């Protein structure tokens, strides 16, 4: 990361919190669970019918490998930082984005965890303002950190709540 003052994705004086590396495992599990059945079905069909159905299995495997690699790169790119008056959420490598959400603008905060997420001990904190454009979700937080963040945001939001 460059420390240039003109770098919009790395404002000065901000220490980024990373998300849990367990998110990588969770996402890879989901990937495997969706792609491997396709591979198995394709191989079985190829054995029973014609050989070229194997190509579908190859494509599915290639997709799996590519996304496997991508998840490994994407998860460390997630970051968030609590500043005095706002929360920063950053994500993406190829298409990067950084969202600044003032605490006073928070309408509500969701904490969500699907079955796979729960198995690996991660949760997603989703922030909502009055704007549908606010795309600020932090996946891959350990449940206790997610709960802490939620309570913290709720407390700060209340203290600074203004009208719309």
């Amino acid at each position, binding site marked *: 990361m460059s420390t240039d*003052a*003109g*770098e*919009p*994705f790395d*404002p000065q004086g901000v220490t980024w919190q990373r998300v849990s590396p367990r998110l990588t495992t969770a996402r890879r599990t989901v990937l495997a669970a969706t792609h491997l059945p396709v591979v198995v079905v394709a191989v079985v069909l190829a054995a029973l019918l014609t050989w070229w159905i194997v190509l579908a299995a190859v494509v599915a495997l290639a997709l799996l490998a590519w996304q496997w690699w991508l998840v490994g790169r994407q998860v460390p790119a997630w970051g968030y930082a609590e500043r005095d*008056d*706002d929360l920063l959420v950053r994500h993406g490598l*190829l*298409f*990067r*984005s*950084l*969202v*600044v*959400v*003032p605490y*006073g*603008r928070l309408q509500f905060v969701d904490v969500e965890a699907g079955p796979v997420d729960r198995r690996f001990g991660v949760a997603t904190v989703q922030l909502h*303002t*009055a*704007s*549908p*454009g*606010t*795309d*600020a979700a932090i996946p891959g937080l350990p449940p206790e950190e997610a709960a802490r963040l939620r309570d913290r945001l709720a407390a700060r939001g209340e203290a600074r709540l*203004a*009208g*719309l």
Partner: protein
Amino acid sequence: MTSEAADSEVQQVLADPGWRRLHPVTPVLRAWKVVAVVLVVVAQQGLDNLLQANLPGWILLLGVLGGLVVVGIVTAVYSAIAWRRTRYRIDADAVHIEQGVLWRRQRQAQLDRLQAVDLVRPLLGRLFGLAELRLEVAGGAGSKISLAYLKEEEAQRVRNALLAAAAGVRFAEGEVVAEAPQRAVVEVPVPRLLLSTLLSGLTIAVLVVLAGCVVTVVLTRSVAPLAGMAPGVLGLAAGFWARFNNAFGFTVAESPDGLRLKHGLLEQRSQTVPPGRVQALRISQPLLWRRADWWRVHVNVAGYGGEEGSGDDCTVVLPVGTREELARLLLVVLPDLGTGTESPLDVVGSGLTGTGTDGGFTASPRASRRLDPIAWRRHGFRITDRAFLARSGRVLRRLDVVPHERTQSLAVEQGPLQRRLGLASVALHSTPGPVSPRVDHLDTATAAALLAEQSVRARAARAAAGPERWMARGD
């Protein structure tokens, strides 16, 4: 809670003289609406089937009429029960409404969260002198409160009382609140509306379709393909009609309760948007309006955007206006642009037509022409003491204005090509609506500075913003 206590509470509420009912003609109107819908569906879908049934004409007619009568009676009875079980009450802090036949619902909306009040008079309601009152409270889709139908004078009285209460003016129970005085700002003449509707992008679509028709007719030497075009032509005509019907007789007025809009040919709508409820504003100009120097203005008002099918119906504050009218409108919607010694109109004007660094705008660097060869000179922003102005579009010119205190959140985005060219885009998030302000392809250093400064500015402006109850200002 014991049933006795509950009963006494219910008794207490029932005894409250503040509870009112909707107009008794309501069930008839609702039943007629359902019958009309059924009639249209039958006419469109079932006519062929009915005619193929080989029944004598009078049986057919009797069957259809009988069916409609039954549908009408059933819905009228249901609506009558629903009407009996619906009531509303307004006090100094909230609107209460109770409704529902099987699933009862009680809703209470805080008046200090009131975003807009619309008085809608549908064609049929106008025959009976009835109107619907819609209150927008910005709680997402379905948060609208609808009082349908009220007698027109009562609807106006209720609206005035609501606005006065929401403004923080206290009034005694039963007191009739006078309508806040209003001053006309802009009236859109019908000939101009007609011409501007014809000069819109829709016309280009019509011309393209017509050209296609002519070519196919000439090539195939038969008129059969024309029948295939019919639905498309009908759709376009409906588009023209919707625009004209909605914007007919458009008047903008100013009152202490805020912006007042009145428009509509068949269905008339009177909107009141209190001060400080406009979240963002977009001034735009289709290509064909350039000669006449006409402009259209949309706004984001929380609550309007969340409703399904709201479209242009309620978010347009000026369907077509000259630059001079635009200036008058801006004075009402955003009275203080915070331009200091400069004339606000000059600043807005340079945002409307300027390129590069005209009028103090910060523009996209030359590198961005590779990503947007047509409009890159138009991408730019300007910051005044009170608002953020984002300029874009060469063919369809656009200028977005967001008061600093209305910014919800900010984002900076960068794709791989932008990264290579040292560019980034900045977006300001506003409430749902037609305006989504963003500045594309800024220099990364500019984008970083803008992000940092704008979040500080928005915070300062929020802290200094007036109270939600606009008349309570300065207390």
